[in-house]
């Protein structure tokens, strides 16, 4: 059962996943197509496509990947590549008719890669706006507070709408960047949650989507929580449980992961709520309590 109101961008077509890396190494297009179909059947609304370094060495490789995927699924694609020329070629090859007329998504526009915004003029697009960093005095610095996340997201949306780059707020996904809990001594997850809350509550940003990728969150942790439950899965669900009421509505994730909202008395959710308020060694100690039996 999918969570009502949660849009899933399928994350699996990315060589960062070892099994997918093998498909790219072998140029196994049938395998990539099967992965696309599996994600679509599991409930994805979009599919993210990251073709790794091969895409940079040969722009046509990513075009081939996109064509192969569009031949078997009718979902819009999120095109995940930092290179302007490659993305331009891929956007020109993208066939909206094969995605029920839905626009492709550019993943992603950040203040360090602002030139990618020009791609929204190649054809109508949606865009993921990376909001965890900003340009200050010509340097890219990471954001440290929810206020900064909100401010950066807001100024990007304003600038793109004013410049005629998009049709409306529905074309934007604000990506808040969800940090790794096991190493979060500085409250970065709290920053993301605050950013979600501020964007979600801002009437000027009504209709803008708020998203994040969940794969970093449970990294460097064991499989089981202290209560014996699946720690990584429950942490991802705990994040959604806390973030969705604040305005988080789109996840870059694995569609067959069966995300669900957790009841208030769930052990991992309870601990997660407590940990995100802590800093430094206190936060780390609390994370250890999450998986180590007392």
């Amino acid at each position, binding site marked *: 059962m999918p969570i009502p109101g949660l849009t899933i961008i399928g994350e699996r077509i990315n060589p960062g996943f070892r099994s997918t890396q093998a498909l790219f190494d072998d140029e196994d297009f049938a395998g990539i197509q099967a992965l696309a179909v599996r994600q679509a059947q599991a409930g994805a609304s979009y599919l993210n496509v990251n073709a790794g370094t091969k895409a940079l060495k040969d722009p046509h490789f990513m075009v081939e990947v996109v064509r192969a995927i569009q031949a078997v699924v009718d979902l819009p694609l999120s095109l995940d590549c930092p290179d302007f020329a490659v993305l331009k070629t891929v956007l020109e090859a993208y066939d909206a008719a094969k995605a029920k007329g839905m626009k492709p998504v550019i993943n992603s526009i950040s203040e360090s890669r602002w030139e990618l915004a020009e791609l929204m003029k190649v054809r109508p697009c949606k865009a993921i706006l990376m909001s965890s*960093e900003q340009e200050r005095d010509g340097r*890219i610095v990471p954001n440290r507070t929810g206020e900064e996340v909100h401010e950066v997201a807001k100024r990007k949306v304003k600038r793109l709408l004013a410049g005629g780059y998009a049709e409306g707020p529905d074309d934007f996904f604000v990506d808040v960047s969800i940090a790794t809990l096991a*190493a979060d001594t500085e409250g970065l997850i709290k920053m993301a949650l605050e950013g979600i809350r501020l964007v979600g509550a801002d009437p000027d940003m009504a209709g803008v989507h708020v998203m994040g990728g969940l794969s970093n969150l449970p990294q*460097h942790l064991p499989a089981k929580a202290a209560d014996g439950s699946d720690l990584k899965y429950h942490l991802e669900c705990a994040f959604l449980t806390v973030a969705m009421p604040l305005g988080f509505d789109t996840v870059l994730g694995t569609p067959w992961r069966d995300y669900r909202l957790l009841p208030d008395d769930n052990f991992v959710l309870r601990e997660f709520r407590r940990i995100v308020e802590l800093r*430094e060694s206190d936060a*780390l100690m609390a994370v250890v309590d999450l998986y180590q039996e007392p």
Partner: protein
Amino acid sequence: MSDPVETIKEWVIKGKKNEAVAATRDALAAGTDPGSIMKDGLIAAMSVVGQKYSSGEFFLPQMMIAARAMTEVIPVLKPHLVGEAAESRGKAVIGTVQGDFHDIGKNIVRMMLEGAGYEVVDLGVDVPADKFVETVRREAPQFVLMSALITLTMESMRRTIAALEAAGLRSVVKIGVGGAPLTHKFAAEIGADFYSEDAYGCVQRCNDYIAA
């Protein structure tokens, strides 16, 4: 736990910084050899933690807490160290290469090196080649250690090595590289001296070079 050095070691392994600092003060007051606290207490503790982490018994938060406990003890101990015990084992400059903002792996290596008695100059993330060059010139380290977590930024490692070469500094340092997408083959191709799959391996390679 009557042996004071053993007590300090246990507190550091458990990551109890207040207890570790108190035990160190007590041990010093009771006349315990500061060099032994360093070697058999702190360095031994971090070696245990590193092994437990490598074997999968410990996870990242435990390693970080232990490293923080050790970091708290060092300033208490340092003024008492004399002679050989006061010297660092070697010096390393470490950083995540330009374009890459991942710092977890780099931080693990830094903690393990500090735990093994090395002095570490941490340049942080997104470090341009010229920053490595400038730091090597200023700090004269034995090692330059670079991390990259995305395939797209691995090329920054090649550029950094080329920049050290161009600055005439390549031969004065041993260069180690690491990160999930890396391989021995890539390390050899860009002219690094070594690649390590994990932080523990990296410390061992540094130890080998120091001993040679």
